[in-house]
């Protein structure tokens, strides 16, 4: 992704600006952004799709949702509780991913950036 193509009327940058532009172009940073986005964007999309599927079933298939499974516990209740399970699960997985994968890369970039090595 070239970042300056659509900018007009600016040939020079202050040292501070140049520093951020260079950091943005750095391979480590590109890697961090790629990994972050590749995780959060599909997972958010999937979570929203699952939520709206649930909403659509509740709105347009109440008969299916009302089908009893165990005693008075029906499909709708289980589907609702599964929304809790998926929310808790995604939360736990994201924390693991961010702590193990994102934090080491971003800490490295921050340290290099603050020392002016990037």
């Amino acid at each position, binding site marked *: *992704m070239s*970042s*300056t193509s*659509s*900018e*007009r009327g*600016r040939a020079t*940058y*202050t040292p501070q*600006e140049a520093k*951020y*532009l260079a*950091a*943005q172009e750095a391979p480590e*940073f590109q890697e*961090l*952004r790629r990994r*972050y*986005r590749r995780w*959060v964007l599909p*997972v*958010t999309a999937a*979570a*929203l799709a699952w*939520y*709206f599927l*649930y*909403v*659509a079933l*509740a*709105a*347009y298939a*109440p*008969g299916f*949702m*009302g089908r009893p499974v*165990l*005693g*008075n*516990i*029906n499909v*709708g*209740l289980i589907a*609702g509780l599964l*929304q*809790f399970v998926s*929310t*808790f699960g*995604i*939360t736990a997985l*994201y*924390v693991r991913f*961010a702590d193990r994968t994102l*934090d080491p890369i*971003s800490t490295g*970039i*921050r340290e290099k*950036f*603050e020392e002016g090595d990037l």
Partner: protein
Amino acid sequence: MTSAAATDAATVLAQEAEAVGNPLLNLAIFMAFVVVTLVLVLKASKTNKSASDMYTAGAAFSGRQNGVAISGDYLSAASFLGIAGAIALTGYDGFLFSIGFLVAWLIALLLVAELLRNTGRFTMADVLAFRMRERPVRTAAATSTLVVSFFYLLAQMAGAGGLVALLLNINNRGGQSLVIAAVGILMIAYVLIGGMKGTTYVQIIKAVLLISGAALMSFWVLSRFGFNFSEMLGQGAEAGAALEPGARYGISGITRLDFVSLSMALVLGVGGLPHILMRFYTVPTAKEARRSVVWAIWLIGLFYLFTLTLGYGAAAIVGAERISAAPGAANSAAPLLAFELGGTLLLGIISAIAFATILAVVAGLTITASASFAHDIYAQVIHKGNAPAGKEVRVARIAALVVGGVAILGGIAANGQNIAFLVALAFAVAASANLPTILYSLFWKRFNTRGCLWSIYGGLIITITLIAFSPAVSGTPTSMLPNVDFSWFPLSNPGIISIPASFLLGFLGTVTSKEYNAAKYAEMEVRSLTGSGASRTALEH
């Protein structure tokens, strides 16, 4: 409790038809909460001097503390009294609120909290204005912050009025207005004396009380049914709380669509609620912001699981007819359930918790609204970042007074309005006017000032227009103005139109303007993902 004792309780209740429990006891327990929190707030006031102290408590809270405070800021009277009542009266359809309110937090966790913490310092506008033309964007962001906070405040204050009717046995409007004013004055005191630190303490205490109160009641309810969840559901269903969806939203094609529209606003609104966003600035780093949201998700999720037991339990034990007949109707389900379980003492405790809930939420909203006015409008737009030293904090304090005054007057006027409707309105505005610009700003390189302005103002105007001409405002017996009819928009919830429209306007505004600041975008992106140069303490900048 034996059935004979239950009958006794019912007789007692029938004898004093207007009030249950002992208003003096309710008041005494609530006053104890006020005294304890005021002492803490006074302690916090020693370090409430700079703008950073006032708005973000010097960014010195830990992720866990902030997570508990977030749940205290988020779980409002609408969540506690509103959802328990909705489940008790309509069954499954009430539970749908719980799910939307929880799943919404994934957007805050995955897309917003950490990036926002790294990029901004005090307000939502800090992030939106970062790489745009500052003054117009800040003005727009502050406007939508004030609108969302205002509707949310109205809902809470109106809820306070309804609660008083039930708990303090004050049935005339004048008396209720007086109590709304007292709640407002207390909230202003918390904010002025304790700033964000004091407010955070209040929210933490309230969260602990609310969640343990709900846990205690759920346990108690289940014990009545031999810990047989299915049995409790069955008895709740016999009393009228349906087990399958549709009792409330399944009536016609319009109500179904209305429900889908409401669900959109709920799930996309949280990431745009300014008082929640501001809480992410009270921790020192993005990692702590992540921890905050994780704590908040667990606590909020746990609480919403309890609402299921509280709702069906209230239907089974109290019964739908008694709930509907009580002053405060659906909102009285949880307090009446407390009375049935633990008599006047538990009712007193639960009532005090409900009041504390309202107080903590309105204090958080007041801080957010006053910070947005003082920091965005006064310091940045009017003084272009060069406000006289110390002046910004003074303006913030005056703004808190004004916001508090408006909230009191608005709350008195809105007393008796449907709380859930007012909260849904705040969510719809947040999802339409705020979330699209936040996401575009953080994730779309090309996004610019025009896109930002079109999306915020467009989202605001469309949402409010559609609501003004919806059946929620006029034309039906349950409308805000039941005697006139100027509605032409069929849905009570505008989200299904206003949210996509706002995303589209943001896109169209952006592609029709050539503005793009590569250097600022680079700075924002590097900062947001790595925390380089992010404000960590009050000393920077």
